[in-house]
């Protein structure tokens, strides 16, 4: 490829990247725009009329009023933010306590029927929510968990994708290290704790980030299993916001976006490793 071609290609890709990031930028600036500016720009979208909506690349009079309003005068925002936090933390802790050892067993402990169990995990991992929704509903009903946060947390703790992905990370640890430890007389528990966990920690980070993004974004599960509004996570709260509160809507959306974006930026390296490994063959 010559220089001109490279510059052209770069220009096309930069353009595309800007296009993809535009909706994010749009949402962020919305949170800092004043109510009159939002109404002036977006009135055509929310009321009748023939004019077209507009948008300013930067807010003309940047303000923190909506963020303050959400943080000060919207108790329901706090309730739902807190629900999202509990759901996400519950899922992550559960997966760490149960999923990590399971992945270690499937990757590194000897057992004759291991391959079959792993295939079972893969099959379950590939089942979409449409298939699992009604079966899970039955279990949750029997356990009396419907309409509790546990109804969203528990099935997600036992989702098999994190285990599968972690098992791949653990498989990448060189076998010689483990053999050497065994010869030195280390027990399996100690090998897991002192070799597996430290060497597998990038994998645990990657899976943790993927799980976080997924749990923070859950919509179908809370929608189906939670009836009481005060138990809803943020993802179900945001769509209900009306035009009169659109500034608040953007501010709430931004507050929901911040934790996900911070995690994405700080852990991107792990995330890319995780994605890459989920695609490779055995």
């Amino acid at each position: 490829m010559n220089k001109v071609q490279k510059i052209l290609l770069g220009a096309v890709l930069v353009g595309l990247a800007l296009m993809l990031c535009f909706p994010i930028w749009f949402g962020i600036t919305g949170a800092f725009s004043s109510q009159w500016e939002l109404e002036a720009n977006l009135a055509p979208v929310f009321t009748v009329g023939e004019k077209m909506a507009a948008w300013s690349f930067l807010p003309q009079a940047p303000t923190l009023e909506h963020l303050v309003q959400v943080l000060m005068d919207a108790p329901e925002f706090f309730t739902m933010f807190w629900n999202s936090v509990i759901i996400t933390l519950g899922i992550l802790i559960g997966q760490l306590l149960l999923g990590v050892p399971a992945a270690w067993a499937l990757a590194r402990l000897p057992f004759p029927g291991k391959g079959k169990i792993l295939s079972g995990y893969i099959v379950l991992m590939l089942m979409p929510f449409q298939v699992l929704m009604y079966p899970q509903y039955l279990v949750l009903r029997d356990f009396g968990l419907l309409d509790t946060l546990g109804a969203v947390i528990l099935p997600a703790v036992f989702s098999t994708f994190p285990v599968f992905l972690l098992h791949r990370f653990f498989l990448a640890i060189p076998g010689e290290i483990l053999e050497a430890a065994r010869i030195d007389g280390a027990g399996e528990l100690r090998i897991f704790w002192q070799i597996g966990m430290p060497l597998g920690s990038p994998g645990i980070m990657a899976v943790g980030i993927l799980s976080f993004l997924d749990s923070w974004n859950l919509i179908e599960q809370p929608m189906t299993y939670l009836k009481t509004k005060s138990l809803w996570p943020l993802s179900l709260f945001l769509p209900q916001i009306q035009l009169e509160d659109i500034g608040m809507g953007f501010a709430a959306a931004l507050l929901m976006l911040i934790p996900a974006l911070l995690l994405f930026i700080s852990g991107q390296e792990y995330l890319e490793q995780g994605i890459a490994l989920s695609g490779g063959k055995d």
Partner: protein
Amino acid sequence: MEKEKQRRGGFAKIWIFWVFLLPDLLGALIFALVPMLRVLLGSFQSAVGSRWVGFQNYATVLCNGAFHLALGNTARFTLICIPILLVLSLGLALGLRALPGIGSTLRSAFLMPMAVPAASVVLVWKVLFHKQGLLNGILLSIFGTRIDWMNSDASFWMLVISYLWRNLGYTTVLWTAGLAAIPEGIYEAAKVDGAAGWQVLRYITLPSLKGTGYTIAVLSLLNSFKVFREAWLVAGDYPQQSMYLMQHLYNNWFRELDFDKIAAASVMTSVVVFVLIALLGKAWDKKE
């Protein structure tokens, strides 16, 4: 004596295996596998009174108009989206590879939408895709025409755009990993043989990516089920009919307590997914 010791050692290892695995495995059995079998059984029974009705639930679902609509839309969505996504992201991965300097920065930008919660962009989507929204503003100034995204069949394309927006970066990273796994030696051999540009792509890169491609196709298929989120957030329970998906149908049946229909439809969906997985497995085996 020696044998006895070995046997006991083997037993200890199996024991420790179960200590590690069992808590998680039990959960997966209780929350997924066992209830799935129960649903299989339930699909042959009536919703009220659990009478045995044979294949009647299946017949009801297969003759249901809403089911046809949802199935048709979901199938059309998958068949259109996945090829576009695969080709576009492969192109991107190749493009990024050719630009080693800014490639990784750009990859971050492409990947960013994946981290954005669907609910966080719902307002943006409403403003972009409204009849008098920003996207139409651009279309109007360039082509002098606009599209009623929300209230016409164009709503289907809104779903396609949402899906591509969210998944492009993820899939590009998958392809990039696949590209990185091709041994450098093959390219060098090709260079020695005088192959250049398109020939390398056609005869070396693409054939080497076959296995990766199958995997990516399946992962993309699974992610395609999640586009319901955008559809529901933007348009609610009863959207314009060209974006009425399987998940909408399930939710509506669920509200109306049509559990017999849900059971039959769940079983059919899992069979379809199962067949697709089997095909993937075969593809993997072939590559070995």
